[in-house]
């Protein structure tokens, strides 16, 4: 059994290794960098099953907890990064076109190496239990995303997206930090656990603390892309390179949610905060659901559609966050995110493959995909069905858990809005399906994918159905062994 903290160290070393490999190898071919990254991250993924999730004292335990949920999100980050690297290999032609370079593959090495550092940041964030650690790892993730979003620097869209992401993300950091300041100021602590103890002690001034909590919530709202902090999402998702969009919509959102859950678990049990905080979370959830689903309807660019869909999914997950205190709230959030990972990454993989050939990612480009390459079309169908929440897919079970939690806590308004917006979701996800199966293709050539991409697509599609029918393995990983789970027992 290995201490969990080695995992990040290994990932970081891997990242440094990839950068060095990029810098010192004379080979024109940069794909080995991505291959090494994929192999290395898979190795670390296997290692996560052999780590000790002990909460006992270590030199770092003030900042870093390796509980079962942290390990779950570390695996989540690793899987996402692996798929993003596969996607980057598929997408390399486009990046090549928009980077200044003296050799054909110039600049691709860094494009493969940077996501590994982002992954390390996400993994640290999964374990962070102190505001300072949360801030530092959040910024590692954010700064690497600044670079990745603006990576194609001869492409006006990518640069625009980069600048918009830069400004709005820095703004959210400002709010987040200012909120932390107030929480630290009132309690004299930055560690979540100690803050929780002080809050229950009833000897703090209410106003300033609530003020700080609201500011932190604002900052996190930007990260998880919920309305009304969603203004950056559509443009950034559309302009960024497709692998980065996939990474942003899965990795960045999951990281935001795990921080939000850790913070909410400290603040929501406090009686005088609970009422106000839940009201605000409910409002955010309702707004995101309505805005995301309604604005997605008229879209004809698939990347932009996925942006609005990502806002809508943030709304569904927020329903469960607003219900923290219910026994299954944590599990519902994490399970939903796991399902969201599968279906979103699958969509982006198919999108990248189709866009490579058709030269664009509008829904029109998917016309007749069912005839051109039935295999890809079926994978896309699985992803869309799961995003819409059709039974037998992982998306259905995720939504079911969320609505169950809402029912348990008596959040009937949210349940109502949720069910209504699911119906709206059917409409726009099936626009894609209709294009694939009921429209005539512009040309009949099948879409080519590399074996690696094909295998990844198959694996993701299989998981969508498998976990939709038999979700127990993920649920068990989230519940953890009962003895290991003091928080759940305490409730």
């Amino acid at each position, binding site marked *: 059994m290995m201490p969990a903290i080695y995992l990040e160290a290994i990932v970081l070393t891997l990242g440094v290794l990839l*950068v060095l490999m990029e810098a010192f190898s004379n080979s024109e071919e940069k794909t080995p960098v991505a291959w090494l990254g994929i192999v290395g991250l898979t190795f670390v993924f296997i290692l996560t099953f052999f780590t000790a999730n002990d909460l006992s004292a270590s030199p770092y335990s003030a900042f*870093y907890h390796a509980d079962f949920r942290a390990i779950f999100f570390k695996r989540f980050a690793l899987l996402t990064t692996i798929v993003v690297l596969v996607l980057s290999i598929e997408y390399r032609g486009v990046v090549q076109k928009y980077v200044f370079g*003296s050799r054909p593959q110039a600049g691709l090495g860094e494009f493969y190496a*940077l996501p590994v550092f982002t992954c390390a*940041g996400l993994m640290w964030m999964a374990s962070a239990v102190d505001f300072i650690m949360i801030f530092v790892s959040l910024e590692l993730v954010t700064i690497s995303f600044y*670079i990745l979003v603006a990576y194609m620097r001869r492409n006006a869209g990518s640069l625009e997206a980069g600048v918009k992401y830069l400004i709005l993300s820095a703004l959210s950091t400002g709010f987040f930090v200012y909120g932390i300041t107030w929480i630290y100021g009132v309690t004299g602590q930055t560690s979540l656990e100690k803050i929780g103890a002080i809050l229950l002690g009833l000897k703090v001034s209410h*106003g300033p603390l609530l003020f700080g909590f609201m500011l932190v919530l604002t900052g996190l709202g930007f990260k998880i892309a919920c309305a009304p902090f969603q203004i950056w999402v559509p443009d950034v998702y559309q302009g960024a390179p497709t692998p980065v969009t996939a990474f942003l919509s899965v990795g960045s959102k999951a990281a935001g949610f795990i921080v939000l859950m850790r913070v909410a678990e400290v603040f929501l049990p406090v009686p005088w905060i609970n009422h106000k905080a839940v009201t605000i979370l409910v409002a955010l959830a309702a707004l995101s659901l309505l805005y995301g689903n309604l604005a997605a309807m008229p879209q004809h660019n698939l990347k932009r559609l996925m942006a609005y869909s990502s806002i809508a999914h943030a709304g569904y997950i927020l329903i469960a966050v607003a219900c923290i205190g219910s026994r299954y709230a944590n599990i519902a959030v994490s399970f939903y995110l796991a399902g969201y990972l599968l279906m979103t990454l699958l969509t982006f993989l198919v999108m990248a493959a189709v866009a490579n050939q058709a030269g664009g990612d509008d829904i029109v480009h998917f016309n007749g995909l069912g005839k051109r390459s039935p295999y890809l079309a079926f994978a896309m169908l699985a992803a869309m069905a799961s995003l819409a929440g059709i039974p037998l897919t992982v998306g259905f079970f995720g939504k079911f858990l969320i609505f169950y939690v809402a029912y348990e806590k008596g959040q009937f308004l949210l349940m109502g809005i949720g069910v209504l917006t699911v119906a709206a979701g059917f409409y726009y996800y099936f626009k894609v399906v209709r294009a694939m199966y009921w429209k005539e293709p512009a040309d009949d050539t099948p879409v080519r994918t590399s074996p690696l991409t094909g295998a990844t697509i198959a694996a993701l599609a299989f998981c969508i159905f498998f976990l939709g029918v038999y979700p127990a393995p993920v649920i068990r990983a989230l519940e953890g062994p009962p003895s290991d789970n003091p928080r759940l027992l305490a409730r």
Partner: protein
Amino acid sequence: MSSLLPWLFSAIMLGFACAVVLNRNPVASALSLVVSFLALAGLYVSLNAFFIGVIQVLVYAGAIMVLFLFIIMLLDLKAEERRTLNTTATLGGLLVAAIFVCELFSVLRHFHKGSLPFPPLAAGPLDDVRGVGTMLFSNYNLPFQVIGALILVATVGVVVLSKRELK
């Protein structure tokens, strides 16, 4: 330190911060920001945070602002002529800022602890470089490592984004 100096520094800081927002010429804005940061360093010193004050002058007023000025000169930015303010953004921005300030002052009015004088520090010289340094390299070792990774990523990114031709 005399009780008047912090007020003076605050006034300078806020005044020049307004100048950053109001100046049309980017160079003038940047220089106002430098002055504002220097005054802020003065405030840090008035709060007995000498090390942070020095860092503020060296890193912020020194390195970061020089970078800003360098870029402004490199891009040869002129003062803005167009002043077609986007009314919704302007009004919205001012409204949110105003709500924020009102909220802040209402919070401060109820924060009675804050109107007490600062508790006294131990007599004798304040060895705060040692205090900060010891903490940084012992208790805060882990965040410090993460910051190291962050700076590495930033370095790689800046090279990738601005090198004329990558190899």
